[in-house]
């Protein structure tokens, strides 16, 4: 089985988010980047599915050379080889178009992504790649089992789950539950240095979105503290002041 895993280079989860240039650009100064945590789940499942010589895992990233350490991290976790589409990722549409253009003639049996990147939170790439390649896409999956060319998937829905099957090639975006994220071991880290990381050129894509500026959430007022033995005052405040119950 040939699996392609799409990975995104994102700020570490502890990052305090600030912007520069009149709030039009994300301030990357001092920011540590990591493999998007959901993409790690997707990658870990891909490695499980191909373990023991049952297939290969390629990771793909759309980004500039600064992303290479993150891509090497994915190779250290256990991907066999990597591809970087050499372009600044403009938006999800652009990224999906690049991934689809690469995957088109490579005959991958399965393409996986994380459910969303923790920076732009689009949850768009998987379904867009599916549409560009005209293959089924399943978003936000919790479980993935593959037997031959037949997969059984659990997908999250409001208040429950949906169990579905799909035959043939497809793409899915993975959430928690699909796999435990694997941690690279020393052998993985050593071998990652020599695994192939191919750089390819981007294809043309129409521009469909543009971030005009960023805003940070308005700060809240000071907390109103209520003594622990006066829980009835809290109920009253929630009822008559905040009007939420």
């Amino acid at each position, binding site marked *: 089985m040939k699996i392609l895993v799409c990975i995104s280079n994102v700020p570490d989860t502890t990052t305090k988010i600030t912007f520069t240039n009149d709030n039009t650009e994300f301030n990357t100064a001092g920011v540590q980047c990591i493999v998007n945590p959901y993409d790690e789940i997707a990658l870990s499942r891909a490695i499980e599915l191909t373990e023991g010589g049952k297939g290969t895992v390629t990771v793909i990233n759309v980004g500039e050379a600064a992303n290479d350490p993150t891509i090497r991290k994915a190779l250290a976790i256990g991907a066999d080889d990597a591809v970087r589409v050499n372009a600044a990722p403009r*938006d999800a549409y652009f990224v999906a178009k690049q991934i689809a253009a690469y995957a088109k003639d490579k005959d991958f049996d399965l393409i996986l992504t994380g459910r969303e990147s*923790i920076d*732009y939170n689009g949850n768009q790439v998987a379904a867009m790649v599916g549409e560009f390649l005209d293959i089924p896409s399943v978003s936000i999956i919790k479980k993935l089992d593959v037997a031959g060319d037949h997969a059984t998937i659990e997908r999250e829905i409001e208040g429950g789950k949906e169990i579905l099957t799909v035959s043939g090639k497809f793409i899915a975006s993975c959430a928690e539950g699909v796999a435990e994220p694997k941690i690279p071991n020393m052998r993985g880290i050593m071998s990652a240095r020599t695994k192939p990381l191919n750089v390819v050129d981007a294809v043309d894509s129409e521009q469909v979105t543009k971030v005009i500026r960023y805003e*940070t959430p308005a700060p809240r007022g000071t907390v109103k503290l209520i003594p622990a033995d006066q829980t009835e005052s809290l109920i009253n405040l929630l009822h008559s002041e905040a009007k939420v119950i």
Partner: protein
Amino acid sequence: MSVLVYVEHAEGKFKKSVFEAVSYAKAIADQQSTNLTAISIGDVADSEIKELGKYGASKVLNVSADQLKTFVNQAYASVIASAAEKEGADVIVLSNSFSGKGLAPRIAVKLKAGLADGAVELPSTDGKFSVKKTAFSGKAFAITELTSANKVIALNPNAFGVKENAADAAIETFTADVKQSDLGTVIKEIVRATDKVSLPDAELVVSAGRGLKGPENWGMIEELAGLLGAATACSKPVSDADWRPHSEHVGQTGIAISPNLYIAIGISGAIQHLAGVSSSKVIVVINKDPEAPFFKVADYGIVGDAFEVVPKLIEALKAHKG
């Protein structure tokens, strides 16, 4: 030029988030002095479809082909996109629900449209069609311009609210050709916990963290949530330890929610957790550590032991409800 809103149903019923999406789409149609059409796919009774009129849908396309009785992401996207083309709709609105998240990107590609997902406000009307959407897992918003001719917007639940705007919904049958290749996924089973409030679109949420010491102590959390009609949620360490299911994990790597009320019990408020809940309208924090960072972003707080405070809160709530 018109606005099309997709109205998803669960077992033939529309949820509040759908009425909210219709209200939002109607407001966009009003901004642009155009009409709003809704599209419903699958088995929904006419009486239920008529409900959409209350929120401003004057026309509803009803699609009820046999192959489309249950949700098929690819085929539904094709039908919605072809309806948009036939209706001449250039703005397509969906709820940013689990299914909406799978549909919106496919529709956007079909229509070569920019997509604003996780929208929290109406588009601006200053000449540029831009939408405020959540980014960086709730740590920021991105004001995103949709520069394409067609535009797709997926609205976050609880962001806009339900607004009545009575119209008489005329129901039209809409038939679309369904390609066999669009039917690649087949639903085998739907498991829905009917006795619980669904977390992503809940108006009230009671959430607990490691301060509860173990899964056996969730009885009082469930009881409090039950009394409020709230959904239950938890922090990452709690779902990682399998005290609670992953579907309850809110935060940067869990789900982001924006309920009217979020009650956090025994959660310290790490930056990753705050990211997922900071757009809650009112936040109540109960924690025995007065230095817990969560108090800095809370509206109301009680410094105290959850095991003493929560039972008292339950009593006070019972008294309040009489």
